[in-house]
């Protein structure tokens, strides 16, 4: 029996999104996952503005992974204007990026704890543990970035405020405790994940696909060519009234749909051999948290940040060259591209966020899965819909 199922609003994910499923005998034959929140127009509202305000405005694309947009945006402007960033500032940005990775991945664990914990009391105590670690990540974001959400200290040319040694020591004194709490909550998380998979009758290959992976770096982000990206309009993908509602683009990398995110980073930079299903996404995401905290500790221990971290050079370019800024966000490679004119005004801005890249990966992963369980696949990718429809 063939039928078409349209779902609007996927609970336990961020934002308002939808699923289009062509189902045969309860199994998805073709699925499309898409965003349904309005396009806020960050790419157009930036046109004509001074490029130095881009990090401040673009960080407001997303309230979950705020600082990655600020970093990608600052790096894009620096790239096009040839501004050299003090190496310590780049390291400190890496710390901010890793802190938001932990902060945000753990938020995802809180969100899906509704699925994982049938017992409410157990769920609350899990959340309390996880919140403890998020509090540490929040402290790193607040101390270095200026605020927990929407860090104002990430500027074009570096970081606006140095990090004094005694503040750094305060952070370092708490990192071990946070790591310990993180490891405890992660093992509980894995245990509960196993029992969820058992309860729902999923196997390891549930939600697998054969797409390539795309990532630029394990922790921070390395340059890519913007020409590699091309975009499919939703009007070419979906049918009927959805054409006028779906609000995300479907980016292709090198002309192909790819997956980005924790699994892509593990496969490309850690030699991980993927099992295929979406369960490992949860595990790899959790492992990234532990890696991230260790890396934060390593960077802070081995560097001093109490000098000048901000190159205040006024950005300027020819208005033709595209500058690309990459940051490895919690959900994958976050790419900002910008053109600025001689006076430093923005003449072109383009944002490619990881959730956008993953829409096709989610759609691929849906193939062959029971239609009633489609939401589990979506959740495993931790989609951030507001980012996707920026």
């Amino acid at each position, binding site marked *: 029996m063939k039928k078409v199922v349209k779902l609007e609003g996927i609970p336990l994910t961020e934002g308002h999104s939808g699923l289009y499923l062509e189902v045969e005998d309860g199994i998805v034959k073709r699925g499309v996952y898409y965003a349904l929140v309005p396009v806020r127009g960050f790419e157009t509202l930036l046109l004509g503005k001074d490029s130095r305000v881009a990090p401040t405005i673009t960080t407001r694309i997303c309230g979950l992974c705020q600082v990655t947009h600020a970093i990608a945006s600052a790096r894009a402007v620096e790239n096009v204007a040839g501004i050299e960033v003090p190496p310590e500032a780049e390291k400190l940005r890496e710390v901010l990026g890793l802190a938001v990775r932990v902060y945000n991945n753990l938020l995802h664990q809180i969100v899906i704890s509704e699925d994982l914990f049938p017992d409410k009391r157990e769920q609350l105590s899990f959340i309390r543990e996880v919140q403890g670690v998020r509090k540490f990540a929040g402290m790193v974001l607040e101390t270095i970035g200026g605020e927990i959400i929407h860090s104002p200290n990430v500027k074009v040319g570096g970081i606006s405020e140095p990090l004094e040694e005694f*503040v750094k020591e305060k952070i370092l004194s708490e990192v071990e405790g946070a790591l310990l709490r993180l490891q405890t909550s992660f093992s509980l998380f894995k245990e509960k994940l196993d029992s969820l998979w058992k309860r729902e009758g999923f196997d390891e290959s549930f939600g697998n696909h054969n797409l390539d992976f795309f990532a630029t770096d394990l922790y921070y982000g390395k340059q890519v060519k913007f020409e590699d990206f091309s975009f499919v309009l939703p009007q070419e993908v979906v049918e009927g009234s959805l054409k006028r509602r779906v609000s995300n683009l479907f980016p292709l990398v090198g002309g192909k749909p790819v997956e980005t995110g924790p699994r892509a980073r593990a496969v490309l930079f850690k030699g991980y051999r993927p099992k295929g299903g979406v369960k490992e996404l949860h595990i790899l995401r959790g492992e990234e948290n532990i890696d991230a905290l260790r890396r934060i500790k390593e960077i802070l221990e081995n560097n001093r940040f109490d000098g000048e971290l901000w190159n205040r050079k006024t950005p300027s370019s020819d208005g033709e060259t595209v500058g690309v800024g990459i940051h490895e966000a919690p959900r994958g490679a976050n790419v900002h591209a910008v053109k600025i004119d001689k006076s430093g005004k923005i003449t072109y801005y383009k944002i490619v966020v990881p959730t956008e890249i993953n829409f096709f990966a989610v759609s691929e992963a849906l193939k062959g899965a029971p239609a009633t369980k489609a939401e589990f696949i979506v959740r495993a990718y931790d989609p951030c819909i507001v980012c996707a429809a920026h």
Partner: protein
Amino acid sequence: MVSLDRRFLIGNFRGAFVVEGKGKNPTESIFRLMLKHQFIDGLLTCSKTGESPKLILKSDEVELPSKNTCFGVNSLLKKAIQKYRFSRLAVYAPACTFDGLNKTQYFGIGCNWTKTAISLKVGFLCPGLLTENAFNAELADIAGKSTGVKRFYFDGGNLFYLLEDGASLKIPLSVHHHYTNSACRYCLNMAAKGTDITCVNLKEEDRVLLIVRSERGWSTLAHLQKTAPGEVLFRKAEEELLASVENFLREKILLNIADIVERVELGLPVPKWNDNKLRKFYRIWNSVDINFEEEVF
């Protein structure tokens, strides 16, 4: 009705003490001791000359503003609390700074978790704040001099400036009122009600009048005396001294009230979201039977 009595002018307090610091500024000594013995982990105030807000972390760096200029103290609040993560911060500033700070604490607005991060609020009795330019104009007006001001103090109910050339200059309030920051002309809280301790600068640099208001201020000073006995000497303030402070406040507040009354009568605008404190005061000022409860305007 409002009567310009001690309760309105100085506000409620538990005790008033003249504190002597053995040749040093006793308020500075107190903060130095508090930092040294870790009662507080930072002191938020202005630099000595008052030109910029300052966050003091070490006890040998303690210096308090000595002129009646102290702007922008709260602009360092986020740095102190969100960045440096101080949890026992002391603040030394005029009353208006504490209006902002108390609001931040009460509503949680402006800076994250200020409520739990401040451990002592010390306000100074403020005759109205001046900027550098205002000081120059005021001195030229009163004395025809262009020399700088070193410190301000109160003596016998009058405001004095100690000038850089060593001379003391009595400042007539009617002239001073003209040169102060315009918001200071509508201020009804010069004695810094809403703080733990109010500090009044006296003629001798090593003497100061401390008006202890809250239990927290009281116990902090008691604890300090126990921890470092003899470093600063406390003596109960004479009634005469308090009366002279009260007289000064009465004289200045009458000038301020005249400005407020004029402003309300002319219907000059006030900021939006304001609970219209000026009109409220005007009503209380002009009525006979409103039962006036303590309220910091």
